[in-house]
């Protein structure tokens, strides 16, 4: 009883604090200085139709490299903690997916992969980008894993995809130092026509690399979980 009333009191204090913050909040009528700078100069400097992508990949490209690194570390730690089965050892017994699930996953799989590739290839034109596209690809792999508990993507293929795309990403970033204004500058390639698929310099290549890397990492995590030897419970 005392515990419940304490929790209730805490929630009330928290609600009051949030209310005082939000009651004073006014939607700003004009963009702040940073946003205005991006909005005015993005088209001539970066040339991407999606300003968010221009900020994420070029202006704040180093942060994106850090995010990719964090995801890589997470995938490595999960692979380290979950013990994988050796050849011939049985995996943890799990029920096979129902007929509906396995048929639906087989129909949805190619479409999901294509949607993921579309999202990251068009990252500089439409909403979305490498992380979202990679997550869609990971979901496609997960759907197959849900239908078939013994499903596994080849570790070798995933490692190669992941490492190659990561190295390419950093090399493109380093090329920016020598050929353009700085690390991860996208102007190592011509900016092209605004709004076309092959425009905005290196952004389509960088976002494709991020998409492949994120997709491979998430697929690796899913394969690790699906192939784990020890019973999770």
């Amino acid at each position, binding site marked *: 009883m005392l515990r419940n009333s304490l929790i209730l009191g805490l929630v009330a204090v928290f609600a009051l604090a949030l209310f005082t913050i939000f009651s004073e909040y006014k939607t700003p009528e004009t963009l702040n200085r940073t946003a205005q700078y991006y909005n005015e100069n993005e088209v001539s400097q970066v040339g991407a139709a999606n300003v968010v992508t221009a900020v994420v990949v070029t202006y704040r490209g180093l942060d994106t490299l850090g995010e990719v690194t964090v995801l890589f570390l997470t995938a490595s730690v999960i692979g380290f903690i979950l013990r994988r089965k050796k050849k011939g050892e049985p995996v943890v*017994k799990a029920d096979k997916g129902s007929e509906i699930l396995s048929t639906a996953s087989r129909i949805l799989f190619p479409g999901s992969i294509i949607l993921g590739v579309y999202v990251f290839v068009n990252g500089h034109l439409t909403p979305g980008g490498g992380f979202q596209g990679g997550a869609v690809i990971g979901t496609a792999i997960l759907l197959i894993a849900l239908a078939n508990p013994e499903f596994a993507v080849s570790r070798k293929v995933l490692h190669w995809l992941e490492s190659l795309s990561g190295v390419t990403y950093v090399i493109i970033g380093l090329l920016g130092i020598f050929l353009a204004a700085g690390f991860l500058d996208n102007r190592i390639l011509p900016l092209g026509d605004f709004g076309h698929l092959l425009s905005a310099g290196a952004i389509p290549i960088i976002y494709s690399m991020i998409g492949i890397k994120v997709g491979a990492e998430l697929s690796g995590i899913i394969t690790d*979980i699906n192939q784990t030897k020890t*019973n999770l419970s």
Partner: protein
Amino acid sequence: MITFNIVLLIFLSVATISGALVAVTAKKTAVAILASGAISLFASIFFLVLASPDVAMTEAAIGAGLTTFLFFVILRKTESHHAEK
């Protein structure tokens, strides 16, 4: 248009909070997982209404898609063969 947006936002807020309550109080784990997936879905519509399609896409792909499916895979792995369904 503005009033429609406000009605939609109020509906989404109510739906999100009730989804959270269902997720906390549900007896079956599968129902709780579905409810938390629904919260992510409502949140992604929230972001879309608030004019940030990129964030909405991330929320839909990771929150509603990947996490929900991942929970189901792990649920299947952890629940034993003869446990009640």
